[in-house]
C-alpha cells in the first residue's frame, strides 16, 4: 500500500466491442479522490459514468490505464483479491433496486447477507447481528426491516441498498444514480443518508448522478465528458472575518499527466475556438488565444 490519493485513475480506457463495433466508454480518464471525501460525478448519458463505477467496484476490468483504490491496483487483482476487495473495501448502490437487493430476502436479511458472505455472521442467521441492527437504525429502516423488497417504497429500497452496501464497513461507497427513480422527497432522504454515512462513518462516497440537486450535497462535483473527466466544481463554505458564512464555488478544468485538458464547451462557443489555439505561457498562468491569421488577437485568462 502506497501513500497517495485514496482513489486514483490514470488514463483509464474501457472499450466494449459489440457486434464487431468498438465503443470507447472511457477514453483516458483521470481521477483522484481522497479518503473521506464526498464526491459527485455528473455527465451526460452515455458519457461513461457507470462504466467508471463498475471498474471502481471491481466488477469490470479496464482495457487500459490504471485504477487504484486504497492502494490496490484494480487492473491486476487476482480473483481472491477481488473477493477481499469487494468484501472489505468497497460497497455500492445501483439505480435499480432489483440489482441491489435479492427479491426473496427481507430487508434485514439483505443487510445481513454481505456479512454472512464475508463470514462475519454475528448472531443468528435472522440478522440478530448487532451491526445489522445498527445499520437498520442508522438508515431509519426500523419499521420495514422485515418486509420483502417488493413491499418497500423506492426510497426505502435505496436506503436498504445503502445499508447493504456498508454492511461490511467498507472504506468506499459507490452509488450509481441512487436517486434516479425516486421523487424529490425520497431523493433528499437518500442523499441525507449518504451524507450521514460519509460524515458519521468516515466512508468515502462517490455518487454518480444526473440530479443537479445532488451537487448541493457534495464537496466536489466531477464532470465527465466523452469518457474523460473534464471539469471539477468545488464547494466549500467559508467563514469570513465577520463570521458570515458564504458558499464558495470554484470551477476547475482537469489536467492529465501529460498536460491535456478540456476547455468547457461554453468557452469554445463563446470565443469560437476551433481546430487549434495559440498558447502563451505567462509567469503564473497560461493564455489561450483563438488562432486568427490576420493578427487580430483576443486574450483569455
Amino acid at each position, binding site marked *: 500500500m502506497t501513500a497517495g490519493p485514496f482513489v486514483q485513475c490514470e488514463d483509464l480506457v474501457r472499450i466494449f466491442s*459489440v457486434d464487431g463495433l468498438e465503443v470507447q466508454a472511457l477514453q483516458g480518464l483521470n481521477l483522484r479522490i481522497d479518503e473521506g471525501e464526498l464526491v459527485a460525478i455528473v455527465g451526460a448519458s452515455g458519457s461513461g459514468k457507470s462504466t467508471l463505477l463498475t471498474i471502481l467496484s471491481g466488477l469490470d476490468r479496464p482495457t487500459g490505464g490504471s485504477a487504484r483504490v486504497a492502494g490496490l491496483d484494480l487492473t491486476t487483482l487476482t480473483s481472491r483479491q477481488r473477493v477481499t476487495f*469487494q468484501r472489505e473495501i468497497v460497497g455500492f448502490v445501483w439505480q435499480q433496486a432489483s440489482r441491489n437487493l435479492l427479491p426473496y*430476502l427481507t430487508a434485514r436479511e439483505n443487510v445481513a447477507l454481505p456479512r454472512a458472505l464475508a463470514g462475519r455472521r454475528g448472531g443468528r442467521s435472522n440478522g440478530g447481528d448487532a451491526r445489522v441492527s445498527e445499520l437498520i437504525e442508522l438508515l431509519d429502516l426500523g419499521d420495514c426491516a422485515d418486509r420483502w423488497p417488493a413491499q418497500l417504497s423506492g426510497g426505502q429500497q435505496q436506503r436498504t441498498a445503502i445499508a447493504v452496501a456498508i454492511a461490511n464497513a467498507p472504506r468506499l461507497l459507490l452509488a450509481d444514480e441512487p436517486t434516479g427513480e425516486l421523487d424529490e422527497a425520497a431523493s433528499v432522504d437518500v442523499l441525507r443518508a449518504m451524507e450521514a454515512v460519509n460524515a458519521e462513518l468516515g466512508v468515502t462516497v462517490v455518487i454518480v448522478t444526473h440530479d443537479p440537486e445532488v451537487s448541493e450535497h457534495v464537496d466536489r462535483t466531477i464532470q465527465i465528458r466523452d469518457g474523460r473527466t473534464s471539469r471539477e466544481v468545488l464547494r466549500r463554505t467559508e467563514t469570513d472575518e465577520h463570521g458570515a458564512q458564504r458558499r464558495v464555488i470554484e470551477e476547475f478544468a482537469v489536467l492529465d499527466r501529460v498536460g491535456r485538458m478540456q476547455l468547457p464547451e461554453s468557452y469554445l462557443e463563446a470565443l469560437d475556438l476551433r481546430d487549434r489555439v495559440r498558447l502563451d505561457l505567462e509567469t503564473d498562468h497560461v493564455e489561450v488565444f483563438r488562432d486568427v491569421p490576420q493578427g487580430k488577437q483576443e486574450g483569455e485568462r
Partner: protein
Amino acid sequence: MTWWRLSRRALADQRGAVALVVLVITVLSLAVTALPRIEATARADQVRHRLADVSPQLRDLSAVTSADALSALDPSLPVTPEDNRRRWAAIAESFEATRTEVSPPLRDALGAGEVTATTDGYAIPLGPGSDVRLPTLSLAADQRIAERVEMVDGAPPAPVSWDPAAGGGGGAEELPDLEIEVMLLDASADRLGLATGDRITVGNLYHDLTLVLSGTYRVLDPDDGYWAHETNGAQPRVVEDLNLGTAVNGRAYVASDGWWSTLAALGQPAQVSLWYPVDVAAIRGGDPALLAAQLRGLTAQQVELTASGGGGGGGGGERSVSIGFASELAVRVDAVAGENAAASNIVALVVVGPLGVAVAVLALLTQLLLERRRPALAIVRARGASPARLRTVLGLEGLLLGLPAAAVGWGVATSLLGTSPGWRGWLPAVVLGVVPAVVLLSPPLPTGLRGRRRDLAVGGLARDVVVLAAAGLVLSQVLSVAPGAVAGTGDPLLVVAPLVLALAVTVLVLRLYPWLARAAHTVLRRGRSLTGFLGSARAVRDPGATLTSVLAVVVGVSVAVFSVVTLATLREGVERTVWVTSGSDLRISGPRIDAAQLEQVRSLDGVAAAATVATVSPAILSSPSASVRATLHLVDGAAYADVLADVPPSVGAAPVADLLGDGGGAGGAVPLMVSPRLDLAPGADGVRLSTGESVDVRVVASGNVLPGVADAGATWVLADAAALPDVAASTPARLLLVRLVPGADGDAVAEAVVGVVGPAGVENAAAAREAATGTPVLRLLTGTLAGSVVAAALLALGSLVAVQAAAAPRRARMLATLRLLGLRRSAQRSLAWWDLTPWVVLGATAAYGLGLVTSHLLLRTLDLRAFTGADQPQPVLPPVALAATAVGVLLAVVACSILPTIRRARTPTAQEDP
C-alpha cells in the same frame, strides 16, 4: 443467513422451474433404468420362447459312446451288484463333474446328466398269428428307470447272478446258457405278442440267451423330455416296410445292477447315451451369444470324462474317456440372437434420439433456472461471495436437484421391475442426476450487474462444421452398409445416426432461419400490418430458436415419423409373411384330398372358397439355353384365385387369374407361371416342361409368391390342372387352402375340414399372425416404437413450453410497452404467434422429411427378417398414420403459440432490468 437458506429461498422462488426439472429427471431416470431391464427381460423371454419349441432331443446336450469305451473309467470286471453300481457311479460322477465345470449361463440351464445303455436288437421268434415280420428286443438299462415307470403287472427284473470267472476260465464258447430277467413296456409286449412270464430264447454268439419277461411297465409321464431320448422305451418302434413287412422293436430293461455283468457275459457291444437335459426356462441373463458360444465350446470338440482313481481295484490315477456332445441348440440360439440383435438395434435407434433430446431439454430447463437466477447470483457475487464458494453452492444445488429425483426414478423402476442388475443398472440414473449440476456449473459465473447484450450470432461456425462433418460421416456409413447386413450388436455410428442427422438438420434450420426471417421482414416492412412488421422484426433481432429447442422439435418429429414408418413396416412385414405362408385363412396339409372331399369342404359352414394344390417334384423346365429342376404345382386356377381374393397386393402374389385368361388355346402350349428364381421371361420360346412326359409350355407371367404354396425363394412352376390332365390324374392333391366367410370361427371350420379329409396338419392364419406378433421382442419393439412416438411428442412439446417460458419476461415487457401504445389484444396474440411458429414450422417440416429419409435409409440397414420371415420388408409409408403425425405436430405448434396469450405470461416486476 446461511448458504443453505439462501439456496432454499432462491429455489423456492423458482419452484415452478425446479419442480419441472425434478419431474423431468425422475421420469427420465425411471425410463433409463427401466428400459434396459425391460429389454433384457424381453430378450431373455425371447430366448426361452423360441427354444421352448425345440424338441428335447435336438435341444439337450447329448453324446453317444460305446459301453466298451466307458468301461475304461472303471476297468475291473464287474461281478457283484456292488461292482455294477460302482461302474454306473464312476460314469455318472465323471459326467456330473463335467457339468459342474461349465460356467453360467449355460450351467444354470443344464439339468443333472442322464445315462442309459442299450444293445442292438435281438431277433425273437415270430409270434403265432402276429403280423409282425421282424420282432426284435434290445436289452437296455438305466439306473433310474424305476423313477419313471410303474409296473403294470409282474415285477421289476432281478439282477443276473452270474460270475464269468466261475465259468471254468476258458473262452467264451465254454460259457453256460444265460437267463436274464427283463421288463417291457406294456404296449411293446402287446405289439410283440408277449406276456409276463414268457421266456424268449434268442441266439447269442456261442450259447443261447433266455430272456424272462418279469413284468410290464407303463410310463409315468410321457411328456418327460427323457422319453424323447428313449423313444423305444415309451412306445414300440414300428417300421412298416412294404417289401419286408412290419418290424417292431421293443426295449427290454434288465436290472441295472446286473447290466455290466450281463454285457460282459454276452460279449455284445452296447451303446451308452449320455445327456444333460436343457431347461430352457432356467436360461438367465438374456445373452444368447454367450450361450451359443458356450454350447459351441462343448460341441466343437471331444470332452474328456475323467474318473478319479479310488473306485476300481486296479491301479489308481486318472482314467478318462472322451465323448463328443451334439446339440441343435447353438443354431437355434443363434437365430434368437439375430432376432434380439435386430430388435436391440431398432430400440437403440429410436431411443437414442429422444434420450439425447431429453437430456438437452433437461439442460434447457436448468439453464432457464440459471438464467432467472443470474441477477441474484451477480448480486451475491458482487457483495463478496467467492467464486469457488458460489460454484460449490451451485454444484451442490444441482446435485440436490438431480440425485434425489434420479434416485426416486431408479427406485420406482427397480421396485416395479424387481430386478437389480449391478452397477450398470444405476449408472444411467446417476449420470442423469448429475446433469443439472454440470449445467449449473458449465457457464461462467455472472459478473457485472448489467444484463448481457443478446447478439444476433446464431452460434459457432466451428460447431456447425463439426456437426455437418459428423452427419456426412454417418450418412456415408449408412449408405455403405449393404441392405439388411447389420446383425450384430449394432454399429455405434448407425445407432447415433438419427441424432446426428437431426443435429445437422437443426444446424441447417438455425442457419437458414435468419435468412428467411430477414426476407419476411423485408417484405412485411413495406406492408401495412403492424404485427407483421413487429413480429418479423422480432424474429430477426430476437429469435426464440435455440439449438436445443430446434433440436427437440427436429428429433421429436423425425423420431415420430421414423417410428410410425418402422411400425408400419414391421406390421406389414409380419402380415405379409403370414399371407405368404398361409395363403388363406386355413392351410390344411397331409392327407390326399379328392374332388368329392373338396366339394364337401366347400359346402361346410363358414367356408367361402377352397382349393387344392397337387405338387410334382421334380419337374424339369427346359429352355433352349438351360434346363432346371423345379417344383410343379397344379391347381384349379379359378378356385385358387378365388381363395386368394383377400390377399393384399403388397404380398406380391402371382397373378393366378392370368393362367386362365390364356385358356390353353394358342398352339396347344400349356400356359405356365414361374418363380422369378427361374429367370424365364414371359413369352420365352421353346420352353418345355417334363414330368415323365414332356410338353410344350408357354410362360404367361412370372410372379413373386404363390401364397400358401411357395415363396419367392422357391423354384416353383404353376399350371392349371385342367391344362395338364394326365399329370393331374396321377398326382393326388395333398394341400388344401380355405378362405373363410368373414367372421367365421377358424378353429371350428378347421375341425370340420379335418372331419372331412382325415387327420391333417392345420395352419390357422389368425393363430399364425398372433404367434408372429406375440413374441417377446416383437412386443418390446412395437411397445418401444409406440412409446417413442409419445415420448418424442412430449419432449418436443416440453421444449416448446420451456422456450416460451424463457422468452416470457422479454415478451411481457415488449407487450407491456405496446399495450401502453394501444396495441389491441388480437394483435398481441399474433405477435406471440411470431415468437414460435415460424421456426417451429420450418424445423418440423425439415424434420418430417428427415424422418422419412432416415426411416428409408436405416430400415435398409436393419435385418428385419428375424421378425418378418424370409424377405427383408420394404419401408412402408402408412398414409393415415403419417397424416395423423403431421396433424399432431400442427396442433402442438398451435397449442404452444397460443399458450402464452392464454396464460397471460406473468408480467415481470417493474424494476426488472431491460
